[in-house]
């Protein structure tokens, strides 16, 4: 029997960092305000005191500097875990992500590998200022050489983070901040991993497969419950890794139901909904009974908060989208 604690998602992230810092001397955590301040979301609380400023490093305010120096550290065999304070501030460091993080292994035929994990809170719904609410996971999923992981529960957040840090490839680890503190779960104290690249079925159902991830998992499950009361049974699949996608699980859920809806808060056009639709087309057309629906953010810049509740897919919009697929 192992000890557990009842943790929120952000606490589980912290616990994951804690565990990995303890397990492996090559792990360092670095970024703006991650040290003394414990992170603006407290994801690194107490780590500075425990591991010191050489393991939990407050950096200057420079994203390319943070990611670029982490690339250099990782090339030397360390396992840096840089944090970008909000995913909307990744872009000043985007070149380091796409031109180097994603390519060092291939460029050097494997001589240099980058076992680094780039963490950032992402997504909307917390009434934050401009640029604090975007979800642009599709950018990273379009860049070969990266893995892109998005947890949606405390238990899995810790396990997926550990798996990412230990992974030989660079991982972009996006944390859905809307549910940082939304609920708690028992999280083992001991180290463990949840495998990258595997989706999880959150709810079984025969009528329609709904694919989602991150903070959208909850309103999707909510919509599924409501529809369940009306006799419509949704299979809800949480992708957990959005690159590389778990095509097998995706196809399987679709073949079971013949109908599919993808839910994400990222803008509809160019989001992962299109990719998943295309995968189903490639692999399972003969099972299809209805158009594959997308419930997503709108194709507009993410608004300031007075209008954000209209922007984000709500349970009502998700229900509506599922109904369309089911009633087709």
């Amino acid at each position, binding site marked *: 029997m192992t000890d557990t604690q009842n943790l929120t998602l952000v606490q589980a992230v912290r616990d994951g960092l804690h565990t990995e810092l303890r397990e492996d001397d090559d792990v360092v955590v670095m970024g703006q305000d991650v040290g003394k301040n414990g992170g603006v979301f407290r994801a690194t609380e107490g780590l500075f005191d425990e591991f010191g400023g050489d393991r939990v490093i407050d950096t200057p305010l420079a994203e390319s500097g943070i990611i670029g120096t982490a690339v250099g550290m990782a090339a030397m065999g360390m396992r840096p875990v840089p944090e970008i304070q909000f995913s909307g501030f990744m872009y*000043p460091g985007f070149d380091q992500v796409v031109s180097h993080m994603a390519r060092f292994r291939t460029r050097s035929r494997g001589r240099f590998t980058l076992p680094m994990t780039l963490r950032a809170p992402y997504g909307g719904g917390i009434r934050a*200022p401009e640029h604090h609410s975007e979800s642009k996971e599709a950018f990273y999923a379009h860049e070969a050489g990266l893995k892109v992981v998005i947890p949606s529960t405390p238990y899995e957040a810790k396990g997926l983070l550990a798996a990412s840090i230990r992974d030989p490839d660079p991982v972009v680890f996006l944390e859905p901040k809307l549910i940082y503190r939304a609920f708690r779960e028992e999280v083992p104290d001991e180290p463990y991993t949840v495998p990258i690249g595997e989706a999880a079925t959150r709810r079984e159902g025969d009528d329609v497969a709904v694919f989602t991830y991150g903070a959208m998992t909850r309103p999707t499950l909510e919509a599924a419950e409501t529809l369940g009361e009306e006799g419509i049974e949704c299979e809800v699949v949480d992708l957990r890794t959005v690159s590389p996608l778990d095509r097998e699980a995706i196809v399987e859920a679709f073949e079971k139901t013949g109908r599919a809806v993808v839910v994400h808060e990222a803008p509809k056009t160019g989001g992962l909904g299109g990719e998943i639709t295309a995968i189903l087309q490639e692999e399972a057309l003969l099972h299809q009974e209805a158009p594959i629906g997308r419930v997503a953010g*709108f194709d507009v*810049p993410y608004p300031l908060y007075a*209008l954000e509740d209209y922007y984000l897919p709500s349970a009502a919009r998700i229900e509506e989208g599922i109904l369309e697929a089911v009633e087709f």
Partner: protein
Amino acid sequence: MTVFDRAYDDTVRVLDEDGEVVGDVPDLGDDSLVEMYRHMRLARHFDGRAVSLQRQGRMGTYPPLSGQEGAQIGSAYALDDDDWMVPSYREHGAALVHGLPLKQTLLYWMGHEDGNNAPPDVNVFPVAVPIASQVPHATGAAWASKLRGEDDAFICYFGDGATSEGDFHEGVNFAGVFDTPTVFFCNNNQWAISVPRERQTRSATLAQKAEAYGIDGVQVDGMDPLAVYSVTKAALEKARDPDSDRPRPTLIEAVQYRFGAHTTADDPTVYRDDDEVERWKRKDPIDRLESYLRDEGVLDDERVAEIESSVEARVADAIDEAESMARPDLRELFEHAYAELPPELERQYEALAALRDDRGDAAFLED
């Protein structure tokens, strides 16, 4: 000898911490000095009210400016009406002086983009949240003015933390190369959230970063509004003068302190000492100017009380105005993404509007 011919660490000062004159008082006239004072009080009072609105759930995250009024009001006073201001997110005080209605600042932090839609004659850029990203804008805008043969100057505000970003470097370097009429005004308030100035960079001053761009750099006591005014004025004049024999751009480092939290989401006691805060509070720019103006016989208790009540009334009115604004219409979510809405966006809007009509706002809104 100009104010630019001095060592980078030779801080320009006019009033000392007690409001005693230690430098050249700018020739502003009593009325303007009182107006400067009034604006500093206004900014301070606004700030307190904004923080409490946030606490009451009537406003979102808000970045307080208390302690920084000297730099904001002093510098903004040096601008001509036609000059342009390119702010970060903390310059409500400066923007106010330059004509941005308080109501708009409130609206912005209440989550309405309207807050950024300054009246047509108010030359203020929208709030820039990504740190230092406005620096190249200020260079480019000033460059446009120069290319068109206009003679406006541009002031760009940013913090000490911003100097570590690539955009600071690239924007100021372009200004040097193209000799644009831009004043780069660094509000060095000692902290970038929890990161202290010394950890931001190893350079002894931020002013000396000008050396990298071959432009003038000068350090000023940012809690001395008169010193800030003088230095900014000199920099703006130089910027406006195409025949100047000095580089037109200037980097000003205004040394100051943020008294409060980084934003209402921040707890500064985690990372800094009360002692330090107290030490800086003794440099309060408002007290300093007040004490000077009292000594000069320009202000007395009565006048100060009148100012205080006018300030309170003005802020209260602005809050009323802002809070009486309705939530923007759904259409606003789409309206300004493009000059003309593409058909797919029109369709997205219509689907959302239909669903709202069908299910009611309750299906969307949390409150």
